[in-house]
């Protein structure tokens, strides 16, 4: 148990994502007792043993789903031999990562608010006058370089959120091309309805990008809260990210309009 506690502490300090699986109640499941545990990280069991190969696959699949929706849950698991167990999947999510492409006037409040909420924040721009430490003292990483090339090289996971707010469609579009088939939880792109429609039409016609991939993109970006200032737009974008992350409806809880 000592090794497990140490591993759990290490996972937390590294900011890695993991799932601790605990048997809560076992009925006729060979060799599994209440309190038995295993730890899943990077898609495999790193501590604890499961002797049944099918059961191991079931547990890994469930763990990966839990990690992606960030909700711990009690799950009833059955095996081919007729055993059954209630198993608790405790999610230890890695901190969400926000990638802000384009370091203009919306990026500044966006990074500030995201840091308040403990996101790991990366800012990218090709202009050092904009992407620098003076403008973004709170950001975890500030990268100066070709935006599409930089996005291409970044590690993007199911807990990554990407906001495309560059100074023009000429720059947003190549970044979006690099992102469409990556596993980001959220991709948002700024722009007017008309320009976005034109962009998506081009994608479909010229490059045979599927409707399914395009429908992942949140564009125009943000919640409809009639934002006006850069600060309000930034809040609207983060509101949308929270909605996607937590599965909300984004209405007033009072149902008032």
């Amino acid at each position, binding site marked *: 148990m000592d090794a497990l506690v140490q591993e759990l502490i290490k996972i937390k300090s590294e900011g890695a994502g993991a799932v601790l699986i605990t048997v809560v*109640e076992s009925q006729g499941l060979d060799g599994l007792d209440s309190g038995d545990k295993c730890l899943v990280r990077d898609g495999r069991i790193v501590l604890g043993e499961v002797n049944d190969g099918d059961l191991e696959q079931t547990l890994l699949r469930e763990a990966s789903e839990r990690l992606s929706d960030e909700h711990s849950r009690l799950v009833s698991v059955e095996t081919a031999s007729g055993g059954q167990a209630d198993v608790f999947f405790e999610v230890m999510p890695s901190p969400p990562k926000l990638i802000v492409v384009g370091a203009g006037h919306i990026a500044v409040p966006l990074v500030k608010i995201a840091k308040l909420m403990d996101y790991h924040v990366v800012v990218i721009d090709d202009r050092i006058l904009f992407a620098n430490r003076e403008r973004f003292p709170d950001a975890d990483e500030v990268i100066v370089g070709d935006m599409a090339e930089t996005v291409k090289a970044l590690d993007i996971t199911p807990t990554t959120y990407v906001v495309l707010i560059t100074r023009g469609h000429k720059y947003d579009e190549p970044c979006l091309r690099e992102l469409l088939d990556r596993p980001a939880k959220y991709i948002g792109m700024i722009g007017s309805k008309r320009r976005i429609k034109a962009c998506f039409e081009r994608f479909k016609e010229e490059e045979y990008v599927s409707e399914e991939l395009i429908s992942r993109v949140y564009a125009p970006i943000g919640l409809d809260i009639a934002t006006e200032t850069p600060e309000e737009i930034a809040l609207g974008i983060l509101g949308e990210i929270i909605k996607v992350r937590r599965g909300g409806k984004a209405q007033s809880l009072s149902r008032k309009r």
Partner: protein
Amino acid sequence: MENIYDDVKEFLDQGETVAVATIVSTKGSTPREVGAKMVVTAWGEILGTIGGGCGEADVRREAIEVVRTRKPRTVRVDLLDDISSDSPAVCGGIMNVFIDPWWKDEESD
């Protein structure tokens, strides 16, 4: 972010057995969410919270037993029949709390 396992480690390093109580499922309105945890020591000292009130007191009592016997158990906490109580933790829901003993195995060191 809180990390309850830091506390668990400290107790284990001192050779103590502790109980970790986790809300594993809920029905209706409950004071805390699935996954909320608290650590209970042999003397009933509590770190963290699963919502306070009578429900937490019941879990604490059971947890002391779990530390003593080193056998896990699940406790159903019913917040429904508590309406007349003046405890602030009356929510009207039900939660299942898994209580699990943790200790340091000698052979693994």
